Every structure is written in C-alpha cells, then in structure tokens.
C-alpha cells in the first residue's frame, strides 16, 4: 500500500507519521530532480546575463543585470530566421515521406500475408541499430558523385549540398523505426475489417488508403511528433553533407554564434535556447502523443 493513493482517496484522514526512510527518499528525489534541471536552467539563467558579469562573478552568482539582449543578438547575428526556415524545408518533407513509406511497408508486412514479411520486418528493425556515423564517409562520397539538375541543386549540381540529399538520408534512417512501430500497431487492427473490405470489392490500395490508414491515425500522429523532433535535432548530417553556409539548418548554424578566437557562452546559451524552443513547445503541446509514441506497439492489443 502506498501513501499517495491513500491520501488521495481520503483527504480528511491524518497523514501517516513521516518515517526517516521517506525523508531520505524525498531528499534523494529532490537532489536527482535538481541534477536534471540544473543543466537546463543554468544556460537559461546565463543567457540573461552579460558575459562580463558572469566572467567576473562566476555563473552561480546573483544577477546584477538581467535582460534579453543576447536573444536579440542571437536572432539577428546568427541569422536564425533563415536557418529556421531551412530546418522546416528539411524536417517537414522528411517526416511526411518517412510516414508515407513506413506505412506502406507496415501495411504489407502486417495486413497482407507477404512472403518473407517477417524477414523484412527484422531487417528494418535491425537497421535501427546501425549507427549513422558508420555510413558517413560512404554516403559523403556517393553524394559527391550523384548529379542533380541545376534547378534542383544549385550551385553544386550534385546531391551533395542539396536538401534532397539530407531529406533522403533522414527518410532512410527513420523509416526503420516507423515500420517497426506501425506494423505492430496495425497488428492490433482487427483482421475482419480487411476481410469485410475485400468482400466489398476493395483493392489493395483501397484497403491501405481508406481502411487501415485512417485507423492508424493515432500512431501516425505520435510518430509524426517524435520524428519531427528527431529530425529537427539532427546536427551531424547537415554539417557533413552541406557546404553552403546559408543552407544549413538551425542546429548546425548555431556554430555561427561562436567567434574565431572567442566563444561567448552566454550568447551561445541564448541561441541554444531559441533553437531548443520549438522542440520544447512541440513536446508540451503534444505531450500525450509523445508518450504514447514511445510506448506504441509495446503491447499487442
């Protein structure tokens, strides 16, 4: 029997005398919670104070000046609006394509008795375990040799240094996880629905597009938010596969706030918070989808 349930169940009852063990646990929980929060709150605090002040007093001192100057500076100096737009140009198509392809594969594996379907599923799931860094150099070399027409990729005329390349690599890496989750989710949809649709004369496309996909909407929503956050947070690929500074997404462009001989960490903190903000907003607004997305397909209904 645990305390909270009892207290919640009966507010008028006197609380149990506090045992020393509970005090220890409480203190422990607070310390751990603070330990998690400090790395988040400290940059927030630092970003509001001028560098000269933190350099003189240290980061854990009481503030003399608090203002949003660094945010303005980061927004303008780092040219963040352009880079935010770049991120959207990468993340939105990448998420949509990933979900589209993954739902295709999941549908085939889960709802059609595809020969070798289980092997395919294992293959896609195993792909998740491959560290992206392993294929860095091959992908780079491949991209520098694949031509694109000039109106798709300028000035390189290659897949390298184009958004197409970045989107393709994200789709390639994220599809595996989405297939895994979606096929597990589709397994929970009663088979009778498809059978009924087949009897009514629905073709494969119709079964996928009008029967299964609408039912998989919660899973698609949850995955969409998760995938958006992941692709948004990517730093590596854009740095490796882009050479035009103005085309970089916002995470990679944060480096613009570092000067040559001097890094103003307070400015960098302000920039980081601006960059982290969209993910935080997405998380708080769509918290339920996030949590359900992480546990989706964990149990078969």
């Amino acid at each position, binding site marked *: 029997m645990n305390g909270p349930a009892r207290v919640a169940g009966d507010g008028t009852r006197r609380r149990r005398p506090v045992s020393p063990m509970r005090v220890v646990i409480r203190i422990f929980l607070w310390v751990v919670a603070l330990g998690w929060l400090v790395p988040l709150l400290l940059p927030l605090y630092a970003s509001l104070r001028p560098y000269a002040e933190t*350099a003189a007093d240290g980061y854990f001192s009481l503030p003399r000046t608090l203002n949003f100057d660094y945010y303005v500076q980061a927004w303008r*100096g780092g040219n963040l609006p352009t880079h935010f737009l770049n991120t959207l*140009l990468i993340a*939105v*198509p990448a998420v*949509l394509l990933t979900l*589209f392809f993954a739902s295709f594969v999941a549908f085939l594996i889960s709802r059609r008795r595809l020969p070798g379907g289980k092997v395919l599923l294992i293959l896609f799931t195993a792909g998740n375990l491959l560290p992206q860094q392993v294929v860095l150099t091959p992908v*780079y070399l491949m*991209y*520098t040799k694949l031509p694109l027409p*000039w*109106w*798709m*990729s*300028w*000035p*390189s005329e*290659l897949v*390298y*240094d184009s*958004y*197409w390349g970045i989107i393709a690599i994200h789709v390639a890496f994220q599809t595996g996880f989405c297939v895994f989750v979606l096929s597990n989710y589709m397994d929970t949809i009663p088979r009778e629905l498809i059978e009924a649709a087949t009897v009514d004369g629905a073709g494969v496309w119709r079964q996928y*597009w009008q029967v299964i*996909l*609408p039912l998989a*909407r919660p899973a698609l929503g949850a995955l969409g938010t998760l995938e958006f956050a992941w692709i948004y947070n990517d730093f590596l690929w854009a*740095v*490796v596969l882009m*050479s*035009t*500074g*103005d085309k970089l997404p916002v995470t*990679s*462009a944060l*480096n*613009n706030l*570092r*000067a*040559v*001989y*001097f*890094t103003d960490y307070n400015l960098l903190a302000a920039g980081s918070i601006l960059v982290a903000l969209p993910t935080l907003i997405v998380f708080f607004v769509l918290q339920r989808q996030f949590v359900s997305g992480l546990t989706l397909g964990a149990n078969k209904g």
Partner: protein
Amino acid sequence: MADPQPDQNSPAAIAQSRQRAQSRQRALSRRRLLGGTAYTAGALALPVGLTACEKPSTGGESGGTVTFGSNYSDEVPKKAIAEVMAASGLDVRVNTVDHNTFQENITRYLQATPDDIFSWFSGFRMQYFAAQGLATDISDVWQSIGGDFSPAMKKASTGSDGKQYFVPFYYYPWAVFYRKSVFQEKGYQIPKTWDDFKALAAKMRTDGLIPIAMADKDGWPAMGTFDYINMRANGYDFHVSLMAGKESWEDSRVKQVFSLWRELLPYNQPGANGRTWQEAAQSLGQKQTGMYLLGMFVGQQFQGEAAADLDFFPFPQIAEAHGQDAVEAPIDGFMISSKVKNLDGAKELLRYLASAKAQNAYLGSDPNNVATSNSADASGYNALQKKAVELVSGAKQISQFLDRDTRPDFASTVMIPSLQSFLSSPKDVNGLCKRIESQKKTIFAS
C-alpha cells in the same frame, strides 16, 4: 468497443455522428495531407526557382561570377570582407561558413564542391592541401604581385614543390604583452635573455603580481609558448622539421624545451587549463598579472585607455646562436581550389586581394592585424600595429603557430591534451615525450 450503442435511428444520433465525421475530416483529411505534401515539395524547389529562372552563369570566361568560400564568420570581419569584395569590380558570391566548422570540414569541402577561391592559412596547412592536388598553382599571379611582398611572405606562400599556392592577406605576430604603466611604475626593464626574463618574473612575484598570465582551456594558446621556447633554444629549422614529423619527440632537444618551460611554471598563473585566454587577458588588463604571451588579437579584450597602455616585447633569447631571429606570425590569406570553375576571374580576384587597396580597406575594420603587402598604407596603424610591422620585417624566419605548422590531426588530437597534461603535471617529461612520439608515428604514417 464496449461503448453502449446509442439508438442509431434517432435523428439526433445521426446528426451527431455526421458532425463528428465532418470535424474529423476537417482536422486532418488525407486530401489535406496530400495537399500539404505537394505544397512543401513546391517550397523545396522554390528557393532555386525564385532566384533563377534560367541557369545562372558559371563563368568560364573572365567576367562571370567568382565564388568565394569564406571563414570570416564574425560579424565585423564578415562585413568588412563583404565590402572588400564589393569593391573588387568583380561579381563575387560569398559563401560564409562559421570559422570552426569551415576548419573542421576543410578536407571534405575541398574534395566535394569547393568555391573558386577560399580563405585559408599559410604554412604546412597550405602545403598539405597543395601536395594533395586540392589547390591550383598560382605562380603566374605571384609574378605580378611578388614585388609587394617580402621574401619571407613569399616563402610562406610556397608549396613543398616550389610553386606558389597562396596569397597572404594579413598576419598577426605573437609576442609577450604587458602594460606600459605597470612597467614604468615598478621600473621594470624589457628582458632580453632567458635569465633576465626569469629574474623579472621573480621580481614581479615579490611585488605581488602574478608574473605570467596563462590560459589553456581551449588547448591551443599554450602552443605559442612551446613554439617560442623551441625556436629560441633549438632554432627555426629544428622546429619546422619537428613539426613536419621528421624529428623524434624523444630527442634531448625536445626534452630541453619542456625543462626550460618548467622553469617558468612557478611564475605562471595557476590553473591554466581551466581558464580561457580572454580571462587571462582581462587579468592583464586589471593589472593582476604582469606579462602574457599571446597573439595580437589579445587587443580585442582591451578598450580605450587600457588599449593605449598595451605594449609587447619579443620573446627573449635563449641560445645565442638563434638570438631572437624567429617570429611567430600566423598569416591568413586565400587560395584557389583545384575544382575552380572560373579560373581567370579567381586569379583576377586574388590579384586584387593582394593589393594595398584591398588590404587597407579590410584592416580599417580590424586593427588587431597587419597587412601583408609592403605597399599597404601604414599611416593609419596604431602604435601596436606599427611595432608589429617592425617586429615581423626584422624577423629572419616566420613561423605559423604549432597547429598550422604541423598536421591538423596531430595538433588537435595529440598536442592539445599533451600540453594540457604538461601544464597540470609537469614532472614526467620523459613519459610525455614518449607518448607524443608514439602517437606521432601513427598519425604521420597514415
């Protein structure tokens, strides 16, 4: 599934279910999803579609666009370089990538789709890429601009095959900085020799100053001290061949450098590995420390009166044979990539960048550097810049700083941690040299 079924025939229930279906459709219909996809696909093509309705000219003949890969990412230099490029009379498209990323990505950048010209450093780092065939030989450009540059500058622009690959733009010397007012007040003399230097440091300590400011949090500032002690004790030639991986780090001469350095450590600001150079420079500004060996960019941390009070002296002599011959003065400049699209335009742009006009225009915005061209106008220089010109033009050899004189991977993965560990525990010189040597062998073998 367990919901009790409402009366399906009641009109209210029908209306309700219809409404529900409608609102769901409004929230996210498949058609809408498709529309969204089409829209973003359109947006993807948009950036190029808007700017270019027909294929932009790549040049090929002089007069076309010249692309310039720039690492001038700080706000002031970025603006200054844009103005310099605008005044060139050529159509220059600047692609700015932040300084650190540019440096880390340089190999990938040069192999893939480099711009016509790119900003880079002289010395081993330039020679390394020239030797790999990633840069274009510009000896013909040097025939027309050579008259404006000192032989040392030309040497710093020459690859290991004897051809020129680099046009120097500006440089900044490394020296020991101090505040004139402190030296005047306490009656200190500029030290000429190693013994004078140590004696001065000892005197400062009795006067309550921390004699030598020191910071190595970022790993590279301490390299300057190593370079200078090595060049003063063993000479420039040994330093260069040590950097090129041709000498053993277990050589007694290298060990001597560390033991000489150890003599200075008691006078150093303690806890160097946790301090940035800015903090060390500020301690010099606040007169807590007496001297600081750093590049001229130290001036960025000094404003107004303190800036006028800042002065420097060359690193003192250690071995008489080498005197104060060598000066550490990293040179920044430009190169042409091997995949250049508009070669004539690129060469024309380099000729312009080598001119006194372009260099004067740039340095007006950045007073912590000195122009490389001899005919650049020195009348606008402050006292420190004038002294720097004097120091470098009197130098018999110019070194480029450890991380530019050796392989970048050796400098960052071996030398940074090695020097930091030396600063925190200077006792085990033999072990340190042994570790550096074994890692050096692996890196230079690759």
